[in-house]
């Protein structure tokens, strides 16, 4: 029998073994990455809306309180997207003939509702309740990010389960005084590391067993 393979095959075959392993590892790593990327979570993607409503202008610039539009955020699971009427409260006086606002006026005239593109969209088997989170000192910015600097709103967090669990496992790291919930600038005081833990006790936030029970979010 003469040689079947060339000298180089020895090196090649060994390389191919290690190469295979490396490629396998890489794929896993990439898959994991993609699952957490904006492509899947859709975080960080600004959405086109029927009207180029700028939170940066209204909330940031003019400092309108979140609750002026999102009225039910303290009472209901749903924070509420304001009815056309709310826009018209002001825009019947100011910018009352700006072409940009025509859709709003026509909606108000015709009673034809505006339809906004949903930005924060949880799977239908997840039940999130705004009111209790707000009540227990979770700030708007904690999940929604610097909305007051967003010309067009985008999803700030991944909204994936592991992300929810971060806070449900260690609420102390994320909550703030109730009066600071709607303050977009609030930063945890550097001089008072124990604040979170105190608030958890004060607000009677349930222990981890409760917060990580399945039925708290899934029904």
């Amino acid at each position, binding site marked *: *029998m003469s040689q*079947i*393979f060339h000298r180089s095959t*020895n090196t090649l075959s060994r390389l191919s073994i290690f190469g295979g392993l490396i490629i396998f590892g890489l794929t896993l790593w990439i898959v994991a990455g993609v699952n957490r990327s904006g492509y899947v979570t859709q975080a960080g993607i600004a959405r086109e809306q029927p009207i180029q409503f700028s939170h940066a202008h209204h909330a940031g610039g003019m400092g309108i309180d979140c609750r002026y539009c999102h009225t039910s955020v303290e009472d209901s699971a749903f924070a509420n997207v304001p009815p056309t009427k709310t826009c018209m409260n002001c825009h019947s006086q100011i910018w009352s003939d700006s072409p940009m606002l025509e859709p709003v006026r026509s909606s108000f005239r015709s009673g034809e509702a505006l339809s906004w593109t949903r930005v924060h969209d949880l799977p239908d088997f997840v039940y999130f309740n705004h009111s209790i989170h707000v009540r227990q000192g979770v700030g708007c910015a904690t999940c929604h990010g610097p909305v007051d600097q967003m010309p067009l709103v985008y999803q700030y967090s*991944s909204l*994936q*389960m592991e992300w929810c669990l971060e806070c449900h496992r260690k609420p102390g790291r994320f909550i703030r005084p109730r009066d600071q919930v709607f303050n977009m600038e609030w930063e945890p005081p550097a001089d008072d590391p124990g604040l979170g833990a105190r608030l958890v006790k004060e607000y009677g936030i349930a222990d981890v067993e409760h917060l990580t029970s399945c039925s708290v979010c899934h029904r």
Partner: protein
Amino acid sequence: MAKADGRRWGWGPNTNEKMTDYPHERVVDATEYAPAPVIGPGHTFGSLTDKISAIVLTRRPPLWWFVGAAVSFALTLMLLVSLTHLVLTGVGIWGNNIPVAWAFDIINLVWWIGIGHAGTLISAILLLLRQSWRTSINRFAEAMTLFAVSCAVIFPLFHTGRPWLAAYWLFPYPNTMGLWPQFRSPLIWDVFAITTYGLVSLAFWFVGLIPDLATLRDRSTNRWMQMVYGMLAMGWRGSAIHWQRYETAYLLLAGLATPLVLSVHTVVSFDFAVGIVPGWHATIFPPYFVAGAIYAGFAMVLALAIPLRALYGLEDFITNRHLENMAKITLVTGLIVVYGYAMEAFFGWYSANQYERFMILNRATGPYAWSYWALIFCNAIAPQILWIKHLRTNLLVLFIVALIVSVGMWLERFVIIVTSLHRDFLPSSWGMYYPTVWDFSTFFGTIGLFLMLMFLFIRVLPMISIFEMRTLLPEAQVKEVEDLRVL
């Protein structure tokens, strides 16, 4: 000496005693130490090498091969159709219901896994027990193991409601949900046990193949076959040093595979023993399942070996002695299984637990009594004829018994799963189970897949371990190292 012994341990016939008795005998007649020959007379290294490798390399497959392959391929297609329909429509196409939430799916899983056991058993345990006769059957028994396992895993995956999730949620991997498998569940134990079993069996099988792949590489004339076999052989050249490590590794594998094979069916039996269902919740299950597995496995090996040796004229290598030994093992394990049945019944009465008592009564007299009595006939009564030597050595009888036992072992799982579930605790939720055409098409589909893999295997790989057969030849006996030292 101990070391040398350790290494020698297990390879073919052990001949220490004789060699030391007659230091100047160069060759010892095989008949002297073997009760009956495990290899036909008149064979040399060359002849058996050529005969076995020819099946793969030169001989054009006989007509029956094409027929068989075609039939099993058709069945495999049926399997694919069934599974596609299953995934698109749902488990509802089967007869499963509440209370009988498991039926054919898990029956088939356990049945296939059981069949798988003979392979590893023959390769590992018989090796450790120095049973030289295992040599000519271990190769395709191992192949059988692999194929049976690959048929088996189809069921736990596809019987789930959402296989596209079960496929990976059952394995621990870091995920965006921060969730992990629930390690108290016997199903997770299954995942680990069966995966391990499959991988280790594959490794074991491949290691055993390497020298033979080298043989095929060196025998093949066609360039492509040389390349393929050459790559698979990984440049094996039969170096003494390689052989030495090879033996060690193979022996260690055997030592590891033995507890593994016992653990796998034990874990499978936990699926039931850990449950609270009367008829499942029994401590006797692990040993009784393992015995049953070996029982089923040997029956299947017989059912395959008998036709194969005839069709390929391998009577020289798979001799009557092989078949008879396997028949004996079948008989013994069969008796253990019968003991298991007896104990189940006894516990049912002795436990004084009304649910257990009712379960036994329901098996024997309930709506599924037919399956229980059929099982008793197949597994307890029919094999007893193997006590008689001339029936045991009659190939046709042996073949038929093997088939009966295979059916019986399937029925055993039917009785355990369906009959126990259909009437458990609350009379109000008692129900019946009736299989649908899709239950059968999936089951027979896997049989098709199994046979097709078998046909492909005997076509492309040596179904008998060539290099191990060589060691059985008288010429393979060499004198003691010590004798050489004196030189």
